[in-house]
């Protein structure tokens, strides 16, 4: 089986064509050549790349796989730009121009306004837009959080709330809606807030984990040591302990922050990216990347450390502009030339790793996006069930992951891997598919449009375009659906805790319960966020991505067509191996209550017949592994020609299914004429004309039989006397002097 979308990857520059990597930067990168600009900013809330120039702000939407197009330009006042973010509906651009002031520019009405921070003594460290119901924009100052909401006419902001807090520095990612604030002398105490659509949730404080306390006493933790990562819809905090060369991982729950363990780091400085839920730890000193799939528990890296490479995707460029190949080539060459100077600069000094998978090369004005090379990971992995699990969890390159999964399965069976391994692999596949069915069912329910009074009215006002409407509804829907249940449970839980007077320390078990509850919220958040991103980016490429979002899971039908049938067509495959593999698959599918495709059942019958394992075949029919169906019954009748009991089973199956026509023609073929007549009368089968019976009776040379059939027809076929058959056959009978009255 060949990968249909097999990537003809070519490696650029000096890294050579044969170089291996598990992650790569997609060539060509996004470039911006804005004269007079020195800085690139990625706004993860609006998913825009912002580049300020003295009096303008250029912005490009950043979507997966999209090429650079002309930027949006917003005219702004001349002045320094310390930070800039677009509001989530992209109407208002906020620019932090000094330590104490943020300017707002309404892109649609052209209105301008400013907001100072509340106290003169505090400095604004940064700000972000949020979609939580209580406020629209949050300033993080050295004195705490200031929550503002937009005035109805979008011409001012109004202070809603203040949370006094000592802040040294902060981190915020829109993906997680999580704000992490560091305080304390060495910035080791972290306080987190989640600005979710359900409101603001304050998470318990926690301290940075540092081993070697003595040596670490004077070490101050900076924002570059801490990272908020969203992996598989779960929120984690990653914190580097430089002295012991370890990465501490914490997971956020609604009411707890639980250490998950540590993984070693091999470089003084590390950077993080998250691509499709996979954590990439860039070991900057050694210039290699380690990949971790943190799902159930901490395991080692999923692959060997390999460098980050730049790759061009020839398929992509060709498909992109087939009409203008020549000009494209020129452009390509140009790109290559300009790249040549900067390309040796992987992990350059001025690389900024933006959340989750964006890299900004400030020196060259280049934006890279990191991609996983699933094929490379698949070929280098030896633990196949885990590999399949990994592939099944892909959401971005779902189509590739799916094909790889099926290919891995095919190879496993053809290479006669141990059956236990195959069995585990089948479990993974079936579980992923039933998981997919379940999430699809819940999504369908959540997407059903319904008027929700719970959604705040203010929220509605802000929605301008219909598109905006679409993208917001799932979020609020999911949350309004889930939250009450969740808070109920949380309440119960706290009651329990209160009664047992162990309020102070949340035990691990409680966290596990909390995990179940919050996990749901988080995951729906995540899927809603997915929806959002897909709806808001209108390019056709991301729409196809939208479709493929669903399809990593391999359905039973696909298992048949792309795995079992393919193997069956190979010449040198041992049928008993294939039978065993199919049985393993059916077992896993049955335990997940998936249906068995008829084609697969037929294949199983065929293989068992080939091996002459009739008793097992019959056992499978009796235990309903091979479900009664017309196709199965027909196949059994076919097989039964060489083994009578199977034939009988098939015949009985036809009868059970009330396939009267087929049943009758089968027993007529056997010459069981009278039985067929009785059956036809009992079940009122009228499809078979009397002449068929009469001909068969006449052909049997049994005059008595013919007389019986005649009698039957006279009694039960209306106006039989008038037909020509009556004339013909009564003549035959009268010759024998047996004339039915």
């Amino acid at each position, binding site marked *: 089986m060949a990968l249909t979308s097999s990537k003809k990857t070519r490696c650029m520059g000096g890294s050579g064509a044969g170089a291996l990597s598990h992650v790569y930067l997609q060539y060509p990168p996004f470039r911006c050549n804005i004269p007079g600009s020195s800085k690139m900013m990625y706004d993860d809330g609006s998913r825009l790349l912002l580049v300020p120039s003295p009096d303008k702000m250029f912005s490009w939407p950043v979507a997966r796989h999209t090429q650079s197009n002309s930027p949006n330009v917003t005219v702004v006042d001349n002045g320094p730009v310390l930070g800039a973010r677009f509001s989530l509906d992209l109407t208002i651009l906020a620019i932090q121009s000094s330590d104490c002031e943020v300017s707002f520019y309404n892109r649609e009405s052209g209105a301008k306004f400013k907001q100072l921070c509340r106290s003169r003594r505090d400095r604004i460290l940064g700000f972000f837009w949020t979609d939580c119901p209580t406020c629209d924009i949050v300033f993080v100052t050295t004195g705490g959080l200031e929550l503002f909401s937009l005035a109805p006419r979008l011409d001012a902001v109004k202070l809603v709330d203040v949370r006094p807090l000592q802040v040294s520095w902060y981190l915020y990612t829109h993906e997680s809606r999580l704000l992490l604030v560091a305080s304390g002398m060495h910035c080791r105490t972290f306080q987190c807030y989640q600005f979710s659509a359900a409101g603001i949730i304050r998470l318990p404080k926690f301290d940075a984990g540092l081993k070697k306390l003595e040596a670490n006493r004077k070490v101050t933790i900076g924002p570059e040591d801490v990272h908020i990562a969203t992996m598989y819809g779960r929120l984690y905090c990653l914190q580097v302990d430089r002295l012991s060369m370890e990465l501490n991982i914490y997971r956020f729950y609604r009411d707890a922050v639980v250490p998950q363990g540590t993984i070693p780091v091999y470089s003084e400085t590390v950077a993080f990216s998250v691509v499709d839920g996979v954590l990439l730890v860039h070991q900057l000193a050694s210039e290699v990347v380690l990949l971790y799939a943190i799902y159930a528990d901490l395991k080692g890296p999923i692959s060997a450390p390999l460098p980050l490479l730049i790759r061009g995707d020839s398929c992509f460029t060709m498909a992109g502009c087939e009409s203008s190949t020549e000009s494209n080539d020129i452009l390509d060459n140009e790109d290559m030339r300009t790249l040549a100077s900067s390309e040796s600069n992987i992990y350059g000094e001025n690389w900024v790793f933006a959340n989750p998978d964006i890299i900004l090369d400030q020196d060259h004005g280049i934006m890279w996006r990191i991609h996983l090379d699933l094929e490379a990971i698949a070929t280098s992995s030896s633990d196949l069930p885990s590999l399949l699990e990994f592939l099944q969890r892909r959401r971005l390159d779902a189509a590739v992951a799916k094909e790889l999964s099926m290919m891995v399965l095919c190879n496993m069976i053809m290479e006669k891997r141990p059956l236990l391994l195959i069995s585990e692999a089948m479990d993974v596949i079936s579980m992923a598919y039933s998981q997919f069915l379940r999430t699809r069912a819940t999504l369908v329910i959540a997407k059903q449009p319904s008027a929700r009074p719970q959604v705040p009215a203010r929220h509605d006002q802000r929605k301008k375009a219909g598109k905006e409407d679409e993208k917001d509804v799932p979020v609020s829907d999911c949350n309004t659906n889930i939250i009450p249940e969740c808070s109920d449970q949380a309440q119960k839980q706290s009651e329990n805790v209160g009664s047992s007077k162990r309020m102070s320390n949340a035990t691990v078990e409680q966290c596990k319960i909390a995990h179940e509850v919050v996990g749901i919220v988080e995951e729906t958040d995540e899927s809603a966020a997915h929806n959002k991103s897909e709806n808001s980016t209108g390019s056709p490429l991301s729409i196809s991505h939208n479709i493929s979002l669903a399809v990593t899971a391999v359905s039973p039908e696909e298992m048949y067509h792309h795995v079992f049938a393919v193997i069956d067509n190979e010449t040198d495959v041992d049928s008993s191996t294939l039978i065993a593999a199919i049985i393993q698959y059916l077992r896993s599918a049955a335990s997940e209550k998936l249906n068995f495709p008829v084609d697969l059942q037929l294949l199983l019958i065929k293989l068992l017949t080939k091996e002459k394992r009739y008793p097992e075949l019959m056992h499978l029919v009796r*235990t309903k*592994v091979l479900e009664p169906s017309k196709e199965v019954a027909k196949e059994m009748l076919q097989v039964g020609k060489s083994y009578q*009991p199977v034939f009988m089973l098939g015949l009985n199956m036809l009868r059970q299914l009330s396939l009267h026509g087929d049943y009758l023609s089968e027993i007529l073929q056997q010459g069981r004429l009278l039985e067929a007549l009785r059956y036809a009368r009992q079940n009122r089968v009228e499809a078979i004309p009397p002449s068929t019976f009469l001909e068969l009776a006449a052909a049997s040379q049994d005059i008595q039989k013919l007389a019986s059939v005649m009698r039957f027809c006279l009694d039960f076929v209306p106006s039989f006397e008038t037909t020509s058959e009556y004339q013909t056959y009564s003549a035959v009978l009268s010759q024998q002097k047996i004339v039915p009255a």
Partner: protein
Amino acid sequence: MILVIEKRKESGELGRTRALQAILMEAHGLFTLFYGSIRALLLNSPSGDVARSCLQAFLPDYISDVMTVKRLSMLSSHSGLQERGTIQMMALDRSTALEVQSVVDLLQSWFGSGRIHHTLLLFQDLLVSTTLPPEDAAHLYTYARMRLIPAAISTSSGGHSLKKVLSRANSSSVHLKASASDITAAGQRPSPADSSNHHSQFFTPRPLQHDKWWRDNDGFLVTDAWGVDAQGMSAITPTVWLQQSSQERMKLVAYQHKQLTVVMLISVMHLAPNADGSHVLRNQVLEKASNKLNALEDRLSKEWGGINANHVPGYRYLYVDYDSRVSKASPAGKIATLTKDSLLSLDKVRSEIDIAKGRCDGSGEAQPYELETCVRTRSNAWVVVRIRGNHELYLVLERASETLLLTAEATEKFSRRHCDGIFASD
């Protein structure tokens, strides 16, 4: 092939000729299972003494099993709703059936293809799954039921076998002397070191002797019925002959966990000469399969419907499928509630049908034999017989309906629900 010892009919005793024949069939089946066909025995040693000694060893053991104090024990009143030589299957749900099949496949895969040729899985005395063809499966199942299942093993844990186990545990030599003297007492020579292929020529195994199987600590079943090896260190792995599938000799290894008994057959031909594959097998089962088997046992015991699982209220029935040699019947406890009159009537009807069937077989008609009978007995019960080719259904309805119509309806209902509608009358 084997002479019939006919027993005079006492007054009121039940006994169809077919039922008696079934005993002989079973005896013959078991004999060929242990020793191979008599024809082969005679071919190998034309003088016939091997065949004779085999028969001499086998028949008394078998008859002692069938007879209880000079009476054929099987000729009790229940025999009308029982069919000798058939397999009782455990009713499995689809996913459990697949689980079983998957464990069996795993088991076979761990020893390379061709090593374990067949498996037979029993839960208590019910067959769960087998890869054997019906005939061989029926023979091996009969044997397993007689000697291998937990009930058969545990009942034999009297003083004798306890002593054996003890002596095995302490010093094997004591036990070996005992078993050697057993053998000489039986008029046989203990086996010298020989090629295992012709082992049975020197030592006649007595597989049906009582109390010859016991369970080792690791869960494997051991017997010395097939003798002990030359050094006298361990018992020889039993071998059986398969008739239907390959006419081949197989080593029999049995593993037991609680109520689950797994019988594995290893082809002797695929083993290196003098190599005893069972040791390798044992280690691998313990290493890899025991977890799976334990889990399977758990699952089966959860699914097992109890001793009355097959009971259908209001019906006393026997359903036989001669194609796969499987029968399903009301539990014995429920059959015992029938009046003797009904059972006698059933017995009479069955013997009539046997004769009719015999006639039909003789005529060599191509069409499957079909029959429907409803008989009203003296005690106002109904005896219903329906035959469709190789499928037979016998029903005794005592407190059922008064009319023939209602009886027919009740039969239809039963057929639909419990026999996949095979016996529907049209």
